């Protein structure tokens, strides 16, 4: 072995190659678990779709101007995104940080905490972008009309998944133990998931809840997906996109700061 002489002269604050290394790590791990991960990420929302679509859908013909299968098939994209992003962000990053010490190993290389967090969340976002489309594709099989706007859905799912992946990482860095995720799931994620306009239109709720839904990123995801499929509303959709970007930026700041506190003594 000889000692290398061609050294990088300067490394920037945010290195694409560092993020690329983190993404490659995730991709390499994913290649071993793609079947089970894909199964759970696709089948779970599909079961919701079938159960609610055939069960509740047989009682209700039209909801908010759409057939129930159209309403549900587009709304449940957000559920798939949530399942494949927030849960991955919480459990995966907790296990890698606490039990496997993978993050310790990575931070001994020229990768900083903010690059690690960004790479992990980007991978979660990419996965969400893909898995988020699954229920919509199933819904097409059950009568949802395909359209060119659907091509935007992976991007919407990516942006939402990126934010929720970061949310999960933030939670994983502030909870005292893995059992504490039960509180996060019950007290935070379940209400967000139920009050996002996925299963029923929100205008049936009291006015004050409508104000609160503006702070629910999943609601913005649901609205964007429906508008992408059934017709874009430029100004409104700009607001929904802005809300998801604000959510992602806020989560990035919180996740990076909390992770740094946990990983750097």
């Amino acid at each position, binding site marked *: *072995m*000889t*000692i*290398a002489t061609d*050294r*990088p002269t*300067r*490394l920037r604050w945010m*290195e694409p*190659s*560092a993020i*690329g*290394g*983190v993404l*490659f*790590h995730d991709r*390499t*791990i994913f290649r*071993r*678990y793609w079947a089970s991960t894909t199964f759970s990420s696709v089948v779970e929302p599909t079961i919701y779709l079938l159960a609610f679509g055939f069960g509740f859908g047989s009682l209700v013909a039209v909801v908010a101007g759409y057939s129930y299968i159209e309403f549900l098939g587009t709304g449940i994209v957000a559920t798939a995104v949530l399942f494949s992003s927030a849960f991955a962000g919480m459990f995966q990053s907790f296990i890698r940080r606490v039990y*496997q*010490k*993978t993050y*310790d*190993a*990575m*931070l*001994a*290389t*020229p*990768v*900083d905490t903010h690059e690690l967090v960004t790479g992990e969340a980007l991978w979660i976002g990419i996965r969400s972008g893909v898995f988020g489309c699954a229920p919509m594709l199933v819904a097409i099989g059950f009568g949802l009309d395909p359209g060119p706007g659907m091509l935007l859905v992976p991007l919407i799912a990516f942006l939402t998944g990126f934010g929720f992946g970061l949310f999960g990482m933030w939670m994983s860095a502030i909870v005292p133990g893995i059992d504490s995720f039960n509180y996060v799931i019950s007290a935070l994620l379940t209400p967000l998931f139920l009050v996002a306009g996925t299963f029923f239109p929100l205008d049936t709720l009291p006015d004050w809840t409508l104000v609160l839904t503006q702070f629910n990123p999943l609601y913005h995801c649901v609205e964007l997906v429906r508008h992408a499929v059934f017709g874009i509303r430029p100004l409104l959709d700009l607001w929904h996109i802005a809300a998801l970007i604000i959510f992602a930026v806020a989560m990035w700041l919180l996740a990076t700061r909390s992770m740094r506190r946990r*990983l*750097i*003594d």
Partner: protein
Amino acid sequence: MKGAAEFAISMRGVTKRFGAIIAVAELDLDIPAGICIGLLGPNGAGKSTTMRLLTAQAIADAGEITVLGCSVPTQSKQARAQMGVVPQQDNLDVELTARANLDVFARLYRIPRREREASVVRALRIAQLTGRADTQVDKLSGGMRRRLLIGRGLVHRPRLVLLDEPTVGLDPQVRQELWSLIDDLRTQGVTVLMSTHYIEEAERLADDVAMMNRGRLIARDAPGKLISQYAGETVMEYFGAPDRLVEVEQLAREVGLVTRRAGPSVSVLRAEQMPPSLLDRLGDSAARRPANLEDVFVTLTGVSVE
């Protein structure tokens, strides 16, 4: 006197606290390039914290750290690109193969695409795992995993390698294998900082030994010089009942010799200076052996290192 930039590692007045506990206290440590230095001390001496300070995985409360000419933590990313770290705790990706583990780290260390495969092959060869390259890590033995950790730390041909307790918990045969691997590094001009609490490991591998206790550096020199300075050439080890051991201690101290308790025996340091009358009086229930770093450490601290 050399400046900080001329050393592979330079630590000046470095202190690290964890709440009320001072893990590293006003540490001054300069390590020239190309040597193997052993950081010797018992558990809790501050060795691992010192390692983490060098990679900026711990931030010092006071003092200055320079690694390979880079100020840490401000330029730590640049420093980490040129150093390899072998942690005490196995943090390999157990669900990946040996080759995949190395491939991931080749990317994290920014090895250019065209050199990546050759770097992985070379690291597998260093780790003596060429034949097990495609075996999943959780199917490898403890010794193989340890070698893979070392190969991972060397995949990018670093100028400096930090080895944190590299052979802890391994059987003697695997330990010997790793020693020759570490010895190879030194002969190739890589600077090696190795923390250990194994006396034999430090004596056999290190050009210099830095002894730490309770976060402080208590002595630093070549192993032979430290032994000669603090423990002399030989040690007489007396065995017997507690009363007998107390008597040995008293008689040795009367003639100005240092003793230390080691389980069921008392060691008299600088035995070559023992007067014949004392040797006669203490009798022949003793064994003469060469002095070692353990004698030095106990003399300096009063506690055992292993």
